[in-house]
């Protein structure tokens, strides 16, 4: 019940500011349009870099929303409400991560085909693009809670957060973009997807513990 109410509250808060949800997408769209502008190049180059760009965009647009997962709650005092309610901290972390995924990861996945079309990604790779994002975006959210918990009482922690979690995300990016790339090259992406799934399992088990530890230290 506590899990659900926390999840529900967070989704509601994000929903209230609808801009939170649609603006990452607009942001993506803008950068995607900038690429051809800056490149001055034709479809050839675009197509080559498409898997990487779609992926990096998904990453960046979640990255910049991570900071506030705990920070907002810390500042308005509502973090105390659930940490002092006796609720298990790792469970709270999973609820926060789930809400974050629902409000940022899911829209990114749904929007990915649009970006893919704009970047001339071969249609054969759409399925695997969506699948890999589906596995990877929860990882972003989970690892994001760790970073966000580490910096929650810093005034300007956003950048530090990127530095902290980027090394964690590098493997995800390699496997995810790799899967799409392999598909465009006509190879099987099974290996990459399996590794991605492994990353997911690992972060689902470890990230809540790490984030909970960080919150505890921060509240000491």
């Amino acid at each position, binding site marked *: 019940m506590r899990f659900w109410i*926390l999840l529900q*509250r967070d989704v*509601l808060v994000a929903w209230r500011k609808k801009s939170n949800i649609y603006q990452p997408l607009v942001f993506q769209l803008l950068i995607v349009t900038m690429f051809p502008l800056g490149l001055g190049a034709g479809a050839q180059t675009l197509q080559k870099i498409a898997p990487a760009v779609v992926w990096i965009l998904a990453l960046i647009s979640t990255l910049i929303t991570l900071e506030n997962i705990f920070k907002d709650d810390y500042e*308005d*005092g509502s973090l105390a*409400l659930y*940490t*002092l309610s006796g609720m298990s901290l790792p469970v709270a972390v999973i609820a926060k991560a789930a809400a974050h995924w629902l409000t940022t990861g899911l829209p990114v996945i749904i929007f990915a085909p649009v970006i893919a079309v704009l970047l001339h990604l071969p249609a054969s790779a759409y399925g695997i693009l969506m699948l890999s994002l589906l596995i990877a975006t929860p990882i972003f959210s989970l690892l994001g809670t760790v970073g966000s918990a580490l910096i929650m009482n810093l005034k300007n922690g956003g950048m530090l957060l990127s530095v902290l979690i980027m090394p964690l995300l590098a493997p995800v990016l390699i496997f995810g973009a790799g899967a799409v790339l392999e598909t465009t090259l006509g190879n099987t992406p099974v290996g990459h997807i399996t590794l991605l799934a492994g990353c997911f399992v690992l972060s689902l088990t470890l990230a809540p513990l790490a984030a909970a530890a960080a919150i505890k230290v921060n509240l000491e």
Partner: protein
Amino acid sequence: MQSTILHISHAQCQKGGEPLFAPVDLVLQPGEMAVVAGNNGSGKTTLLEAVAGLGSFCQGGIHFAPDNNRDSWLQHSHYIGHSLGNKASLTCLENLHFAATINGIRTNEQQLSDGLAQVGLHGYEYHYANDLSAGQKKRLSLSRLLLLNKTFWLLDEPFVNLDQTGCDWLFDCISKHISQGGAALLTAHDNKRIHQQADHFIQLQRP
């Protein structure tokens, strides 16, 4: 309400590496009220947060009878500090509903509306917490106290920003809680009346 007892024994908190106040002792039983007093910057907030579980002691500490179990202490206490814990983009009703549910209390809308009406927020059920005035925000956070039904209330300057009727209401509310077997540990620069009512009076002094 259960007969938990809070022991604060020889406790000190630090900020920036130095202890803030001389060691503090207190035994707070249900049915009692303790007031923490001291000048600005003497460490009242720091002490209250440490007792609530949001900070730590550098010396001594707290102990909860009968079992020294952090979880059971959390189940019996509620802290309202300088940051009030309202989510700006939720309505008053939603804020209260969240606070209740996360503390494991099932409520229906009627109970929640009544809770808001008690603190003078009748008619503000569907206003966002962000759009309230300073005093109304305070009232919203205080409405949690009545609903959550905890034994120990830890209140940091609860009277701040309340108007005259609000202060009177809160005073009565605390008195009633005490007389019904609750306990309160609070600070209040601006309410001398409650200082006189206190069973325990802790004056924080330089170490």
